[in-house]
């Protein structure tokens, strides 16, 4: 990671009127065409999911069961058809998108905050604290995620918030490792010693001086984590441990569609596509972000 900082530093030195690192990163990001397209699509998805319910999708269309129109094919009244209890699939995709994206973002946030705190503590204090935290990280890393999440989601139940917590609690380890290694490298550098000399306290040093320097790899890791959280939610749904009805999520919509995959394939195709396109966009975004911040970053 030192390479990252040096690289940025070198570029900075060569310019006459140096733009900020972020301006530079932005310029690099925009050069990554696939990343830009992906970000636009992603933004569009977020906008639709956020605004559409208020503008033109009726709540009832997404939530009111209608036994008279079970699994009907796409038509003028229901652009993407209806599902196994007669609800409009388009409306549910939009409401489900809210849930899936929320799960993705918040699970990432849980993982990120937990990982940052633990990684920072381990990296900054070293010694016994480091040993303890890193052994615990090893423990969590050596158990397959899905094995634990089965137990977790049965134990905690299957509401939106518990799914977020379970996914978050099982994904902080890579973040902790990144933050710790950044700390190990940066804390020996002069500006930290300087801060300490002028009497800054541990908390302040960590928060104000070291953490901002870890942002680049964390930004990339966080972006990718959103995508993987959405996919994890889908896997959990497949196993029947997903978010409970009536709340739609792309994962439980896709799972529920399995029974009719032959006779009413549209019920399965659209949520599948939604997940696919969204995760694809997120990955391109993460990729572009990495290239913009430091192409040699291994994430």
């Amino acid at each position: 990671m030192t390479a990252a900082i040096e690289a940025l530093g070198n570029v900075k030195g060569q310019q006459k009127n140096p733009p900020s690192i972020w301006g530079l990163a932005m310029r690099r990001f925009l050069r990554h065409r696939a990343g830009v397209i992906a970000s636009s699509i992603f933004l569009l998805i977020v906008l639709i999911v956020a605004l559409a319910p208020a503008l033109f999708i009726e709540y009832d269309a997404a939530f009111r069961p209608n036994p008279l129109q079970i699994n009907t094919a796409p038509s003028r009244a229901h652009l993407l058809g209806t599902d196994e209890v007669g609800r409009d699939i388009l409306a549910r995709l939009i409401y489900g998108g809210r849930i899936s994206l929320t799960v993705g973002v918040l699970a990432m946030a849980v993982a990120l905050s937990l990982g940052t705190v633990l990684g920072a503590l381990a990296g900054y204090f070293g010694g016994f604290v480091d040993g303890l935290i890193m052994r615990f990280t090893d423990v969590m890393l050596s158990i397959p995620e899905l094995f634990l999440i089965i137990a977790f989601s049965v134990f905690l139940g299957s509401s939106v918030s518990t799914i977020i917590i379970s996914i978050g609690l099982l994904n902080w380890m890579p973040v902790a490792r990144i933050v710790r290694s950044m700390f190990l490298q940066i804390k020996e550098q002069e500006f930290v010693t300087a801060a300490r000399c002028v009497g800054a306290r541990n908390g302040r040093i960590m928060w104000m001086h070291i953490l901002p320097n870890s942002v680049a790899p964390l930004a990339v890791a966080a972006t990718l984590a959103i995508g993987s959280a959405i996919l994890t939610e889908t896997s959990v749904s497949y196993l029947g441990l997903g978010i409970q009805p009536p709340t739609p999520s792309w994962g439980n919509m896709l799972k529920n569609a399995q029974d009719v995959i032959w006779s009413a394939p549209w019920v399965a195709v659209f949520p599948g596509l939604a997940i696919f396109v969204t995760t694809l966009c997120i990955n391109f975004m993460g990729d572009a972000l990495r290239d913009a911040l430091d192409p040699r970053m291994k994430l």
Partner: protein
Amino acid sequence: MSKRASLIVAILVVASLVLSGCSAPEPQVVEKEVEKVVKETVIVEKEVEKVVEVEKPEDTTPKGTVVVGVWQEPKGLIWNIFYDAHANDIIDSIFYSPVTTNEKDELVPEMLEQVPTVENGGVSEDGKTITLKFKPGFTWHDGQPVTAEDYKFTWQFIMDPATASQTTAGWNMIQDIEVVDDLTAVVTLTDSYVPFVAATLVFPILPKHCLEGVSDPGNSEYARAPIGNGPFMFKEWISGGRIVVVANPTAPIPPKLESIVFQFVPDMNTLLALLRTGDVDVAYDLRETQIPELVKMQGVDTVALPGLNIERYYFNLRNPKDLSQPHPIFNDIRVRKAIMMGMDRWSAVSGILQGYGEVAVTELDNHPWANTDLEPVPYDPEAAKALLDEAGWVPGSDGIRVKDGQRLSFRHSTTAGNQVRENLQLLFQQNLKDIGVEMVIDNYQSSTLFGGCSSDGIFGTGNFDIIGFTNSPASIDLAQEWSDYFLSTSIKDCETNPAGSNAWGYSNPALDEKMQCALNELDPDVRVQCIKDAQKIIYDDYFVLYVYDRLDVFAISDRVQGVNPTIFGGHSYSYANWHIVGE
């Protein structure tokens, strides 16, 4: 030999009020499917099963292999240790049992000369002594003869705590077994127990010479490679793969197939794909929601029988927070009745189940003992509203009714991830919302839902408002299993009776009396009347809603004949009769 033509009908009807109370459900063709079904209907020559020496046809060499797709692998092949429906289905191919059911679901002798009854002298007047006469000619697959000693051993084996038998139901009523000769055993019961024959004699006898003295039989070689006495012999079991059985050349009634492969396919959709490609010939225990897919499949007949699995919702009569108190909402029978009347089960069946199911009436629908005088609780939202008004629940500001500051809101719990159940919940949630009742869906995995006291399970601690489930009856005589849910002596209490099954706290002396009669009354007519009365009492107390009769769904490739699934016997009573056509 009498022969008669019989029709295998692909689909049965549902949703008819008239039919829902019929005593013996006959397969019927769904009107809308008639065209399609008729094309696929096959007429088979079926021999009426008789266990007396059948005059053998010319060519008796067993031919061909049938692949049965099974989505749940058995845990072991000793029936009493690994007791579950999927294991029993496979065990049935390897073992005969003293009595069995035929294609009309009547109890018929298999290894016995006759089904013991009071009339034929098999059961004594006081019901405590039962004489079993075995037919000669049955041998274990290793050549040893099957004797009455094996029967006695089976009882001892089941009751021995070291066996770790899962179930002892019925066998625990035996006081002693006297082996009179190789083919005669006399069973003495501690008390008259009418379900004895149907509850214990339909299960296989185990070989004494293989299992006697085996320590930890569940972990023995026998448990994974049993020596049986049935129409097929165990050949191999590949963990996670398959179990293969091959024809037993010395079987008294020789099978027509060379072998049966039970292939384990855990994912239902993959199973359907294999049916389509012809890799799997027979699949069972499929879901109602898959029927639309199945009927479209070329070369596959779908059989759907209104079975004995009645989906039901039990109302908790005790306060989940304090079981010594009555339930704050459900202790008023008017509220319970109103909630039942507010759920549109007809739309559930015709819409969500696409007509593949039937609105239920009692616990014993489709059983000869069903009380056919009862009608299903009607769907009548107006009457429901009136009842709630009368009970003092008036609509509050958010549309949900309130009484004394309490909202008319309750949790509805069933097994999470079960799609049919979830879909019904969604519909009922909406129905109830329309009459001002809030139903909150609160589902759990079955390991938590049915969990006991020590693990804070929902069932164990009574921590539910309404709990929804069903279960498959183990024997055609349902009295034992049925009574456990309703007897006041079975009321679950983590302190005093942690193993009780009456988790809803129902107690009614009138019902207790009828249930006792169902267990002990020797006169069959009086007994059946008691059982019918019991259904009426339960019905009138409006604390369990029988939602719909689930269909038992089988998919059978045209190349396989002779399966003829029945309500109780399923597909597994007829293995010996399965054969392949057109090859």
